[in-house]
């Protein structure tokens, strides 16, 4: 069974959240990246956009599919990973690091209760 970073929260839609105070960094998991195949384009949200938990906020396009990105938590976008515009492959090579998608200011941290820890997510993707 694959193992996932234990300091993150995971959604059923295969997004992860790293919480640092009121800031949440979000991205897609290594499992999702592998299922998608080589990512060739990421449509990023706009800075300032208000994301609703589990609603779509962007699009990730691989050589074989186009999938929506679902926000794992609610929040306001403060930063997007501009590097993905030219090097979307970070999603495949380093999904939990350089492949992050956006940073948010958490508007409702209770939403984290709806997410899984690393073990539960490993169970889901087993």
């Amino acid at each position, binding site marked *: 069974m694959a193992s996932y970073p234990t300091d993150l929260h995971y959604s059923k839609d295969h997004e992860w959240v790293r919480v640092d105070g009121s800031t949440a960094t979000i991205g897609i998991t290594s499992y999702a990246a592998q299922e998608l195949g080589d990512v060739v*384009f990421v*449509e990023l949200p*706009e800075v300032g956009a208000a994301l609703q938990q589990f609603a779509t906020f962007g699009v990730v*396009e691989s050589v074989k*599919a*186009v999938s*929506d990105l679902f926000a794992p938590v609610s929040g306001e976008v403060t930063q997007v990973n501009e590097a993905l515009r030219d090097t979307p492959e970070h999603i495949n090579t380093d999904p939990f690091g350089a492949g992050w998608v956006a940073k948010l200011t958490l508007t409702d941290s209770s939403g984290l209760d709806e997410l899984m820890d690393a073990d539960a997510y490993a169970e889901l993707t087993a």
Partner: protein
Amino acid sequence: MAYSPHTDADRERMLATVGVGSVDDLFADIPAAVRPARFEIPPPLVEQQVRAELARLAEHNRVPQVSFLGAGAYRHLIPSVVWEVIGRSEFSTSYTPYQPEVSQGTLQSIYEFQSLICELTGMEVATASHYDGATATAEAALMACRLTRRQRIAVSGAVNPQIRHVLATYCSGPGIEIVEVPADLAEGGSGLTPAEAAARVLDDDFACLISQQPNFFGVIEPMAELAAAAHATGALLVAVVEPVSLALLEPPGSYEADIVAAEGQPLGIPLAYGGPYVGLMAARMSAVRQMPGRLVGGTHDAEGRRGYVLTLQAREQHIRREKAASNICTNQALCALAATAYLSAVGPEGLREVAELSTVQARHVAAAIEGGGLGERRFTAPYFSEVALRVPEAARRYAALVAQGIVPGYPLWRVYPDLADTLLLAATELTSDADIERLVDALGATR
């Protein structure tokens, strides 16, 4: 069109090939109760009878001897080579390639079409074509909404009313609001869309401003100023253009248009009752993922040979389903091929000559009518190949001329109440001096 009857033996072979015993067996999955017992259609006819019936129907067509009707569709010379190319069965009988990469010839022809449209418009990427200019414009508006994430559209009142009707239909589903920017139709007015009028309408809720060059009244819009007004509020400029005019006028790429839409009919496609025509669309590469419809890309195969593919298909409906950039991915391949053959045959010089002759003849039309004291120009702004003229008692004279087989242009008062007694007359390189003389004589006789 060929008359191709089926014999009983033909039908037997076809049924045997698909493995059913009778035509009724093909419909076995449909419950008998909902199948019609019979159809109320006339009995079959032999070839001579079919031809006679079609000839009888064709006699109802009113083909004018002389016509100055334009208003979005224009009669130009179509070189014979265009018919020769599109008449080849490899093109004329083939449907959209569902295993596209084996249809390299079709893909190459579309790639060449896209390249020509980019060259003509000064834009970076063009689609494989759309149904017509109106649907291309509506798709461009929806594309602007996706790119800006805004839901309102400003459209000049001097955009072809038929295009605006189709736009309204497209926008009614997703609930996109359309606001009109009034053109200057006042007495002694320019006929243009003033940039100040656009600025008054636009705010940061608007996805785009749509304006047409030359506009519906044939006059030359201040496109750079309109682009600046749109861009000042973060809106895009959708430029609706007439392709032949681009041989003389500034290309949209140089006045900062974001999306270009056009009716491609003037490029080698004959006038017909509403079509088939062909829609053109071009944009900047940064917007390519939001472009609707098909795109052909050039590439190299494993052995380094030039090849063509359908590219960026992930935007399309067979992958993206209801979230596709458009749910009309069909293109007008045969009409696009006609445009490709036309542009290749006339070349840049030939297209410029077509445009120049059209503008010269339009000036002859205006001068002949004004000189004869029969009417006067309605707008002050410079015009291209179409001119709006106010002719006293225009409705009565229009009817009288049409009855004689002379169509003296498009009756603008039918769509624009402010433009009473105003006719929109188009000229092309096929408008002869004799045609103009006939028009003036006939108009004079109705005094």
